[in-house]
């Protein structure tokens, strides 16, 4: 039967459908921020001791390390890959930094230089991870998972099972210092955020990361060196892990592989909750900042309420499933690279 002639053509129908999809997208991208405000309000009302200066300082302290880490991972995830080497690399960097500054095990006293070397080590590991991933064409989850285990092993080897205790006074000063009410470690995280923001918005590199995450084959056809970008992204991720590793050592005053434990999950949760898609191509560092705030506020609230720490872990798990299921487009592949 011949179709009736209606006024609407399929082209117009298609355009209308696209408009609706775009509007939906706008709402979804504003959601994390709204959720954060809502959370803060609810916590303020229901949880005793939330809206105090001390507690806010505590929250700021809490978010320093996860923020630094997540900013590194954000770029990897936007590109469509994943970096599971967090725990091993952070543990390794945390271990070696304590062996380079004034400590109870070795004779070195490299101070700030030692800290810089440790961060550079993190960068170098990220670089090598990137090179292996690109040259071997193994999926990122496989390479980074292996790197994590390898670096954990090296971490323990570095202090031969007996962690070094830090005597370097700078460590204590940083751990306890603050500037205009904000802890020094948090300032460091904010500086990393500024750098990440700059990379994302004001460099071609930032655009390429998004482009590769969105549609790698189109980017390949324009002749851009995708391998180089991927290596750079993993190097940046390694740099952030280096920072987090040194932060961890500063916090506990000694160097051991456990510094890295339990750091991967909150970072990924924060990134996903903030609205960055695990499929790649969408999101950003501002999203990650909001995500880290959400995760930290929830954690803080649960602690104030006295919730069992194991249940806290379970709650984090539930949050990540909820966040991912709300953001993943049906049928689209996730972390395929």
């Amino acid at each position: 039967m011949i179709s009736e002639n209606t006024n609407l053509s399929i082209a117009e129908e298609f355009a209308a459908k696209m408009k609706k999809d775009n509007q939906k997208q706008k709402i979804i991208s504003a959601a994390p921020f709204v959720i954060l405000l809502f959370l803060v309000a609810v916590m303020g009302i229901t949880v005793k001791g939330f809206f105090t200066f001390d507690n806010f300082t505590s929250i700021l302290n809490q978010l320093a390390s996860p923020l630094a880490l997540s900013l590194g991972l954000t770029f990897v995830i936007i590109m469509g890959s994943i970096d599971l080497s967090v725990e091993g690399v952070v543990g390794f960097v945390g271990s070696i930094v304590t062996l380079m500054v004034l400590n109870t095990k070795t004779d070195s006293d490299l101070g700030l230089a030692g800290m810089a070397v440790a961060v550079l080590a993190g960068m170098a590991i990220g670089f090598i991870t990137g090179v292996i991933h690109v040259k071997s064409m193994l999926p990122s989850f496989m390479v980074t998972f292996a790197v994590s285990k390898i670096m954990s092993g090296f971490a323990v080897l570095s202090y031969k099972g007996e962690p070094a205790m830090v005597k370097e006074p700078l460590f204590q000063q940083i751990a306890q210092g603050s500037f205009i009410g904000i802890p020094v470690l948090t300032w460091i995280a904010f500086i990393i955020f500024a750098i990440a923001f700059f990379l994302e918005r004001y460099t071609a590199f930032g655009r390429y990361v998004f482009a590769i995450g969105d549609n790698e084959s189109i980017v390949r056809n324009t002749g851009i060196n995708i391998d180089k970008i991927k290596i750079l992204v993993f190097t940046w991720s390694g740099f952030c892990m280096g920072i987090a590793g040194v932060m961890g050592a500063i916090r506990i005053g000694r160097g051991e592989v456990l510094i890295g434990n339990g750091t991967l999950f909150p970072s990924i949760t924060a990134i996903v909750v903030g609205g960055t898609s695990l499929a790649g191509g969408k999101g950003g560092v501002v999203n990650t900042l909001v995500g880290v705030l959400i995760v930290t506020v929830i954690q803080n609230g649960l602690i104030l309420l006295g919730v069992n720490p194991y249940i806290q872990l379970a709650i984090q798990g539930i949050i990540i499933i909820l966040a991912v299921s709300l953001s993943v487009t049906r049928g689209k592949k996730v972390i395929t690279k």
Partner: protein
Amino acid sequence: MQNRTLFKAENISKEYPGTVALRGINMEINAGEVVGLIGENGAGKSTLLKIIMGIEQPTTGRMELHGKEYAPQNPIHANSLGVGMVFQEQSLIQNLTVGQNIFFGQEKKYRKFGVVNWKRMYEDTKQALAAIGISNVRPDRKVSQLDFATRQMVEIAKVFNIVSNASVEGSIILLDEPTSVLNDEEVKQLYKQIDKMRKAGNAVVFVSHRLDEVMEISDRIYIFKDGSNVGIMKKEEANEMLLYEKMVGRTATGEYYKVDRQTTPDKEVVMEVKNLGLTGYFMNVSFKLHKGEVIGICGVVGSGKEHLCAVICGDEAHTAGEMIIKGKRKVFSDPCDSRKSGILSIPKERREEGIIGSLSIHENICLSSYPSVKKKGFISKKLQYQKALEWIDRLGIKCSGIKERTEFLSGGNAQKVVFARVLSSGADILVLNHPTRGVDIGAKEDIYGIIRDMTAAGKSVILLGDTLDECIGLSNRILVMKDGKVTKEYDASPSNKPEQVDIVRYMM
């Protein structure tokens, strides 16, 4: 306006294993010219464009650009020499802005101490857009927020920007079906853009199924059929009738499609669709499919026939209208559902969707009918082998043995394996999506025989033919689709087959 020759193709041929896509094509493109290129699906238009862009290499023949030997190794190489193409599938990066897309890969020009000056890039973007006459698109908008027509324009601006920066003598821009997503207003805009490009001494190749548009905008029109150039018409000489005739040529003989074996369908209706629609792709499609009948659906890319096929197969759920299978109203969201109603399809992409290449012939054949090869709850290899041997014999599948992996079979034989699988599944409504695509002529005839056997055995078929000829030859009835709607229905009984020329008119 100079009339110098920008591009020459001499005796270009392209062969693929089993088929010849292009035969001895000669072509000339001059500065300031718009060259139209028309032909049916499979006539070789896309292949020629791919060769000009360096995506494929010709089997024989040579090309000249600006008087010098031209043999592009890849699209980037072609771009650098001043040849660019706007593809049918969008090549913009959705989450970047208009400006970032147009200058993608060229950020160096705007970089100072590592910082990219987006503002200056957006200024240049405005110029790049103005170069083809666009003034109302904001350079800082994300592509994902633009409608298709605007995206198309940005793509053209991007390609034009790349090629015009490459060469001073005049560039060549290939447009592949540029108007399929545009409405009348937007098409007029496109003409203006093309005009601007040609007035600046460049040349445009306009490939389209819309003959009226091709006639309006082109200076000369090349007509392709079955891989050959069957005519070059100047704008003044061209009219629709002439173009259709050349495009479509002589109808193949009825013997080839075994028209004598065409069965008369039963009165029983196995499937009925009423005002079926899928938002944005097709609407108001209604027809009844009878037992033992073949309904052929004809239409160009973008006519909606592929999506109609997807809805019937269960790949997508329809958004409007009704689908009634054997008296029951159904909505499918998964091919599993449609399978339960007795519908199975032979997909277009054989290697990805039809066979599992790493599995053997016998495993593939039994994929859709496992219950029939089970013994005491386990799969019986013996029963599998038996079934496979039967089908190899019945369909004439050429192979080195039933254990041969299907990925090593030729197109025609792989397709026969798909037919075997589908036929032994017990499904009685079969959707054939380009069933003879990439199949050699001998296997094609065999497949036509198989289709006749199927209908004689009471199965019903929805056919998306590889060529118009095939559709006419095999079908009992033909539905012609254009822009998402059914524009004409033809009876195609053996004594009353419609002419290709007539159908083409309703397709374009």
